[in-house]
């Protein structure tokens, strides 16, 4: 599987023996699609790979560890959903890909786009990549368009930033894109300022600008959160369609599991800066393995269970300026064990992977193992 999150050498020996058991014992819902995508990942080079990515925001008095050692590979052509609650680091991760983090953010590890490390890439080359090979759609279309700029020009701007085309050609291409994302009568709307358009229409303009140069990778950061529900569905449909037509890979960031179920192939679940579980969509919903994923799914209101109180995840998100050692979910976890003070490595589970000691540690041997780890540390 993908690169495991290995922190401490001493964990390896323990893991080796138990991984196989965990995989065979897991009630995998490995359908044909997940099986094929697993094999594909083994052969095709990933379009985007995170390797032990950490992002720290340095403040005056404290440093906030927003992303703590995320390793992940996106396969060319897939739609990958990154879910997690607010502040779990999913937006920070996407901004790290774009290179748009504020100066006080410190990125370590590697983010490889088509094999090239973005973190160490010179700023000029990185800018040329943005909006060309890698594009982004932001959450709030009301503020991500410039109110003093005609909408069509904002699309044309993206083209002219990367291609030496005439004003006229850029305009023609922008009109074509506006039509493609479903703006009615684009020629008439081209010179409109953003406030003449509805929220959904504005988001379509943002998407048109993101697609202007046929990117290979599209990052969509909560593209539907600021929109009302009926428009949400339309925008998701549009994104899925465009992704197909342009053969893009899409990283969709959301806190909405419904959105994930609707259009994603695989899902990564983040908690407090750590990637706790990665799985194909159907596996994640059918057989969530990480306790946090399970808690999240239980908190979803379901049609079958209309009455009664909604389940909640007990406790609070940890303070990321003083994150707990080891697994960051341990304080809210019903299965907390002594070994959880050490960061769990990502372990293959079904067609995905899980970063939880439950996967590798047999409860019976837990105490013994904890002693070993504690003794070594």
């Amino acid at each position, binding site marked *: 599987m993908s690169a495991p999150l290995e922190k401490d050498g001493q964990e390896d020996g323990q893991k080796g023996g138990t991984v196989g058991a965990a995989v065979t014992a897991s009630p995998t819902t490995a359908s044909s699609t997940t099986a094929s995508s697993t094999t594909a990942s083994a052969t095709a080079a990933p379009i985007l790979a995170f390797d032990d990515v950490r992002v720290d925001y340095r403040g005056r008095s404290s440093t906030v560890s927003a992303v703590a050692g995320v390793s992940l590979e996106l396969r060319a052509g897939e739609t990958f959903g990154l879910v997690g609650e607010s502040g779990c680091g999913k937006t920070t991760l996407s901004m790290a890909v*774009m290179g*748009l983090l504020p*100066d006080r953010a410190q990125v370590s590890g590697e983010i490889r786009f088509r094999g090239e490390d973005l973190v160490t890439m010179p700023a000029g080359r990185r*800018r*040329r*990549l*943005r*909006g*060309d090979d890698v*594009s*982004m759609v*932001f959450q*709030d279309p009301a*503020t*991500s*368009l*410039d*109110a*003093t*700029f005609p909408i069509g020009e*904002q699309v044309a*701007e*993206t083209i002219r*930033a*990367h291609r030496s085309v005439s004003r006229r050609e850029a305009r023609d291409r922008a009109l074509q894109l506006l039509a493609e994302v479903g703006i009615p009568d684009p020629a008439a709307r081209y010179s409109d300022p953003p406030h003449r358009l509805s929220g959904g229409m504005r988001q379509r303009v*943002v998407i048109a*600008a*993101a697609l*202007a*140069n046929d990117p290979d990778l599209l990052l969509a950061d909560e593209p539907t959160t600021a929109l009302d529900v009926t428009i949400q569905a339309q925008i998701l449909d549009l994104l899925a369609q465009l992704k197909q037509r342009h053969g893009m890979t899409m990283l969709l960031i959301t806190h909405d599991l419904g959105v994930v179920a609707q259009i994603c192939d695989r899902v990564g679940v983040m908690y407090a800066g750590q990637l706790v579980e990665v799985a194909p969509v159907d596996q994640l919903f059918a057989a969530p393995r990480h306790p946090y994923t399970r808690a999240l799914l239980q908190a979803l209101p379901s049609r079958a269970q209309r009455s009664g109180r909604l389940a909640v995840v007990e406790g609070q998100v940890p303070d990321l300026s003083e994150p707990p050692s080891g697994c960051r979910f341990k304080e809210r976890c019903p299965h907390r064990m002594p070994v959880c003070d050490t960061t769990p490595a990502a372990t293959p589970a079904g067609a995905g992977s899980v970063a939880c000691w439950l996967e590798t540690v047999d409860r019976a041997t837990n105490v013994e193992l904890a002693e070993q780890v504690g003794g070594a540390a």
Partner: protein
Amino acid sequence: MIALEPVTVTSRRRRIPMPRWGGREGMAGWIILGVLVLVALLAPVLAPHSTEAIDGSRIFGAPDWSHPFGSDDLGRDVFSRVLYAYRASLSIAIGSVLLAMAVGIPIGLIAGYAGGWTDLVLMRAVDLLLAFPALLLAISLIAILGPGGLVALLAIAIIYVPIMARVVRSSVLVVRNQPYVLGARARGASHWAIVRGHVLPNAIGPALVQASVLMAFAIIIEAALSFLGLGAQPPTPELGLMLAEGNNYLTQAPWVEIFPGLAIALSVLAFNLIGDGLRRSFDPGQLAR
């Protein structure tokens, strides 16, 4: 049966109040300014007398039909002199502010957008200028270069550069963190394109408001410099200079003093009206509508 009244479409016209120009208030200012500029330009046509024609029979002559503002201590026509004086005053006021904008806005833009060391170095240099009292700065410059209209313009511009730079920088600091700037960066726009296309148009509002207020002050500073004998030199007709001369005869011939004073007040009023109007139009609440 029922006669339908024709629907009036006034509401439609009302919806375009030219917000960028300052609405009704600003319009009044623009009109006054327009008239004053026209007067200055057409002074040779409008002036009934020569500005330097000395008329011994009309020393301290009271206002009458052919000399609406009266005559001064040398019997020169005050009305004609005021018309010509607007040329000097307005060109110094507008010229100095334009010069200050040309220098100050780029400084503010670069400092605010780049941040970090660039910001620190540029702003400390600006603070240095700001630390001098305005008039003292102007007077020392005049002491070096000698008095004259152009020197006054330059001196006022130097006083205004730090003010302009600060105003622009502070609005750039707000604008550069707006999501649309991030969006433009995400689309791969270069820093130059972002500054020119997104930051400047969104940050220029407060600077324009400031510019109109500064123009009003420029007229006053320039008048003060001339009053002190450091601006335009006699016999050039100049508002501050006329005030200085008229000052001595205030009790015998108040018109020598009052009309140039009113002329200054009128031009200051025009700039202030424009400034207030612009301020209101750039108010976020107004833009949202």
